């Protein structure tokens, strides 16, 4: 089991954590894009 390792310095640690939180928005967008692709493929090819 491994996990993300943050820098020992608390300031860098905070910056690192904030960056991770910001990335969540783009991960959500990516998941929504996958759903959109599923819908388009279904409508075009699978019905």
């Amino acid at each position, binding site marked *: *089991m*491994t*996990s*993300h390792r*943050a820098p*020992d310095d*608390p*300031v860098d*640690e*905070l910056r*690192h*954590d*904030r960056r*991770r*939180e*910001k990335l*969540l*928005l783009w*991960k*959500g*967008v*990516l*998941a*929504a894009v*996958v*759903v959109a692709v*599923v*819908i388009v493929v*279904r409508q075009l090819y*699978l*019905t």
Partner: protein
Amino acid sequence: MTDVLSWLAGLGLWVLAILVLVGAIPNLVTVVQFVLLALHRWRDHLDDDQVDLEELPRVAVLVPAWNEAPVLRLSVDRMMALDYPADRLIVAVVDDASTDETPELMAAKCAQYPGRVRHLRREKGGQGKAHTLNHGLRELLADDWAEAVLITDADVVFEPTAIRRMTRHLTDPHVGAVTAFIKEASGDPNWMNRYIGYEYTAAQAVGRRAQNVVGAQACLAGGAQLHTRANLDALGGEIDTTTLAEDTVTTLLTQLDGRAVVFDGNAECYAEEPADIVGLWKQRLRWSRGNLQVGRRFKHVFFRPSRLHHLGNWWFGAMWWSTLLLPGFMVVSSAALVTLWWLDASRGRFVFDLLWITNALGFVFTTVSTLLVDRGVARRSWRQGLAFPGLISLFVMLWVLAPAPTRAVVRGVCEALGWGWTPEVRHLLALAAYLWIAVCMLAAWGLYRLDKLRTLGPVGGVLMFVVGYGPLLCAITFAAYVAEARGQAATWDKTVKTGKVGVA
């Protein structure tokens, strides 16, 4: 008169259609949770003034333990090695009258770490975790050394920076408690450990971040709850002992009193979780019964907005009750579909497709999101993430998402079996799919009974893949309804820990 009857019959069919779609509510609430996750960057409670090492509070770590020497051996050493000033951290192990070598081990640890490790022995134990914790809290709050108390479990291993990360939030005087992300981390994980690992990512790394966004937390993880001293004092210096969900009661009481509860997903720790169906059933039955008890006790709080707290927020109430009532939703949805199958088959097919397209797209969105949130868990548990609803439900999703190819395959199979592809066969297949929404819980209960009768081992993993881990959790919640309705004794059935947490 005939017109009125016809109108009433039409209305009845629409009511049935709506009852079918009720089955999509929990899924839609979950999707909203994942949308809230994306907004967490604006509500992460991380501020520039949280990094002053001189301001770190004095933390007492409280560890209740009963016959857990194998896990304490590792966890006490790990706590002593945490990246936290040595003069600001102590560990107090409350030994609940253990009959194993815990006393000897703790004597050795106290000698190894003088002044930093305490052994608090209860000569008469067995009353449950909350009583054990209260014994420790009385000792720790007797003097003014502890500025914060971290309540954890003996098997929990913290990342070196986890406690420091949690204490960051205590610079905000409005915060009463902070919780961390507990990961399943069995050294040699089997299929059950991997399911739980995936579930924890969805429930904690996603769910609790979403709860941060709305400002209302449902539960401080029992193994990682950091309280300010002020919060514990306001709670009367003790943990509730009247329910099986003492951590949830503490969480709600903290917020009802106007103090915030924060989840820090970057503060990580690791725990050992059940490795088979019987173990999971025992643990989750206790949790589900506890949540039902808490739901009853705090029923006046939900869906009632307050200026003091956010527990009355509509989404929080929807999240809480849709989880707790999920088995009920499934039974209602399935029963309505079966009635429509009998009364109006074409309408039944239409709402079935609508229900399952919603479920399937929700499943794609939440699964992709969960796997993206934590790459470590994704690598370890991606198969269990995909198999979460079970093979049969996945096939139903495929049926509605890719109808043409899936129906061609099913038709081929039916014809190969000599059943043909007649309207009757299609009608019966539809009935089977409608029933499965509720029957999956019965199948999961059957797996539990089988595992109890004779340990299934790896075969259990295969059967679980067919039936689904989600249906198993629903079946356990249903069993909790039954246990509560029967007024069964609320005993503290402890999950056995063996010390197999493996952390790199």
